[in-house]
C-alpha cells in the first residue's frame, strides 16, 4: 500500500521565497538585488530570511535607482551572473523602460547573439489597499512588444514556485509579475523539487459552454464565477495562460474550438491590456469556431485611484464575470 504524501500548503509569497532560496543554493551565479530585499526582507516580505542565510553578497540592498537595477542586472548577466532583480512595484518598470525594452530584451539580438542575458525581473503588481495610480497597475502588456523577453504571471503558489525556478534557469530574460493581492493566498506546494516549463497554459477548470481566458489574480475571480455559473447549469472552462510569452496559442485555440464562447479577463484596463492580443489571435486563428462575439472583462480605463473606496471599483469582480457568462451563454 502506498502512503499518500502529506500535502503541504504554502502562501504565494512563501512559494516565491522558497524558489529563490533553492536557486540561490543550487547555483552560485544567482544573486538577488533590489530595494530593501536584504535583512528587511523586501517591501512585502518576499525575500525574508534570504539575507541571513546567503549573506550580503548574494542578497543585495540597492539605492532607489531603477535604471541601475535593470541595466546593472544586464551588465551582470552578460558577464556570467544570473541576477534576480526585485522592483518594489511593477509600475516602476516605466522608470527603467529603456533598460527593460532596449537593453534587457535586445542586448543579445542586437549584438548578433554573442551574449545571453539570463536575468529575472520580479515585478509585484496589482491594485491592493489604496496604493494609488503609480503603485497599483498590472503593466504586463507593456512588454508584449518587447520581443526578446519572456512574460510570466503565475496565479497560484504552485505555479509561482515552479515558474520562478524555470525563469531563473532560463537563459533568456524573464519579466515575472506577482500580484501583491495574492501574497497571502495559500495553496499546495510539494516538498519535492519541481519546475514548470515556460509557455504552457494551464486549464484551471474544465468546462463545456464558456471559456474564460485569463491570468494572474483574475484567475481566482474567474474560478469563483465559474462555480456560481455551474449552479445555474452553465459549464465554464478557465484557461490560465500563465505566460504571455512564450504564449500557448494551441491552448487558446483548443478552448475556443471547444466552447465557442470566450471571455477574456485581466485586471489591467481593457485598452492596451494583453486581452487585445488574445482576442486578435482568436479573430485570426479560430474565428469560425465562435458562437458569440468575444468579450473582454477588464479593469477600468483610468489610472487606479488612491482612495480605497474608489479602488474597489477598479478590478472586475466575480459578479461582473458572472453577468458576462450568463450573457454570452445565452447569445
Amino acid at each position, binding site marked *: 500500500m502506498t502512503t499518500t504524501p502529506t500535502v503541504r500548503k504554502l502562501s504565494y509569497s512563501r512559494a516565491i521565497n522558497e524558489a529563490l532560496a533553492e536557486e540561490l543554493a543550487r547555483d552560485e551565479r544567482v544573486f538577488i538585488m533590489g*530595494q530593501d530585499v536584504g535583512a*528587511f526582507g523586501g517591501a512585502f516580505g518576499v525575500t525574508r530570511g534570504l539575507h541571513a542565510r546567503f549573506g550580503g553578497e548574494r542578497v543585495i540592498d540597492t539605492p*532607489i*535607482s531603477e535604471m541601475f537595477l535593470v541595466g546593472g542586472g544586464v551588465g551582470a548577466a552578460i558577464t556570467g551572473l544570473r541576477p534576480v532583480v526585485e522592483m518594489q512595484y511593477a509600475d516602476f518598470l516605466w522608470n527603467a523602460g529603456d533598460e527593460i525594452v532596449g537593453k534587457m530584451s535586445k542586448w543579445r539580438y542586437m549584438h548578433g547573439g554573442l551574449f545571453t542575458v539570463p536575468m529575472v525581473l520580479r515585478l509585484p503588481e496589482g491594485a491592493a489597499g489604496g496604493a494609488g495610480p503609480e*503603485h497599483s497597475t498590472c503593466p504586463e502588456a507593456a512588454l508584449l512588444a518587447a520581443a526578446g523577453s519572456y512574460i510570466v504571471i503565475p496565479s497560484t503558489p504552485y505555479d509561482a514556485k515552479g515558474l520562478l525556478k524555470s525563469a531563473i534557469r532560463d537563459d533568456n530574460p524573464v519579466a515575472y509579475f506577482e500580484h501583491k493581492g495574492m501574497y497571502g493566498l495559500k495553496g499546495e506546494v510539494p516538498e519535492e523539487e519541481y519546475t514548470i516549463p515556460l509557455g504552457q497554459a494551464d486549464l484551471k477548470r474544465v468546462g463545456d459552454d464558456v471559456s474564460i481566458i485569463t491570468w494572474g489574480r483574475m484567475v481566482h475571480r474567474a474560478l469563483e464565477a465559474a462555480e456560481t455559473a455551474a449552479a445555474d447549469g452553465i459549464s465554464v472552462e478557465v484557461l490560465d495562460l500563465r505566460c504571455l510569452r512564450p504564449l500557448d496559442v494551441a491552448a487558446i485555440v483548443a478552448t475556443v474550438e471547444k466552447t465557442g464562447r470566450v471571455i477574456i479577463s485581466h485586471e489591467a484596463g481593457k485598452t492596451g491590456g494583453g486581452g487585445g492580443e488574445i482576442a486578435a489571435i482568436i479573430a485570426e486563428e479560430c474565428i469560425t469556431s465562435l458562437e458569440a462575439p468575444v468579450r473582454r472583462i477588464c479593469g477600468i480605463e483610468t489610472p487606479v*485611484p488612491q482612495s480605497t473606496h474608489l479602488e474597489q471599483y477598479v478590478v472586475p469582480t466575480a459578479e461582473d464575470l458572472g453577468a458576462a457568462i450568463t450573457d454570452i451563454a445565452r447569445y
Partner: protein
Amino acid sequence: MLTDELKIEIYRMMYLAQTWEQRLLRLLDDGLVSGFYHAGRGHEALEVASMVALRDDDYLLYDHRGCAHMLAKRMSMVSLFGDFLGNDKGSTKGLGAGIVHIADPDHGVLGQSGTLGGGHVLAAGVGLSIKLRKTDQVVVNFFGDGAANRGTFHEGANVAGAWKLPVIYIVQNNGWAISTPQSQVTAIESFAERAAGYGMAGVSIDGMDPFLVYETMAEAVERARGGGGPTLLEGRVVRFRGHYEGDPGTYRSKEELAAGKDLDPVVRTRLRLLEDGLRTEEELDRLQHDVDAEIEAALEEALTGTVPGRERLSEGLYV
C-alpha cells in the same frame, strides 16, 4: 529677516503640523483613513521653516514624509483631512486622496510624484516656466536621501544649474530609505557635495533647527529670485517613526532613535522661545490650545464630506 513674530509663527506651524499628524494617526487607528502614511514626525523644522520663507505664489512639489510642508504652505486643514478621508472636502475632492496626490494650485502646491524623484525633473520644468514667463517665483522640490539617487535628479539639477533656474532642491536627509542606511548605498556623507557638479549652490545644515533653516532658505530664495540660480539645501533630520505606520523599524538601533528624539524640533523650539523671553509659558499654552481647537474644528468640518460615488471614477481623466 527672522523677526520675533516669524519665530512665533514658525513654532506655531510646527506645533500645528505635529498635532495635525497626531490627529491623523488617530483616524488611521480608528480605521477612518485608509492607506499608506509616512509620518513626518521629526521633520517639522525643515518642512515648516523652509516654507515660511516662501510666498503664496511660489511653487511646492512636496514629498511623502508627512504634511508639514503643505500645512506651512497654507493649505487648508479641512482640505488635507478631506484628502485623507477620501471625501469631497479634500483638495482633490476624494478623487486623488491620501498624501501622495494632494494639491492646491492657489497656494502653489503642485502635487507629488508617487514614483520618488519624479519631481526632480518636474521642478526643473517649473523653473524653466518661471524663467520664460519672467515672474520672480521660485519652486521648491522636497525629497529624501533615498530619492536623491534617482537619475532624474541628475537631469533636473543639470538643467537647473546650466540655465540658472529658480529651483530649490531640499533633501530631507534622515539617513534612511525605508530600511536602507545612506552609507550602504551612497559614498558621500552630505548630498550638498553634489551641488558643485551642477554649478549649484550647496549647503548642508542641521534640519532640526528651524531658525537656521529659515535663514538658509531665505538666502536661497533671494538668490533664486535674483537670477542667481538654484540651490541644493540638505537638512539633516531624524525620522521619529517607522517608514510607514506599521513598520516595526527593527533595522534601527534604539540608541540611534533615542538620540534623535532628544533633538525634537517642536520641544526644543518651545524651550528656545521661552529662554529668549519671546513668550511666556502661558502664552504658548494658549497658542497651542488655539491650534488644537483649530485642528478639531477642521476635522469636524472635513468629516461632513461625502465620498465620491463609482460614477466619478474617471472624472478628471480628460479635459
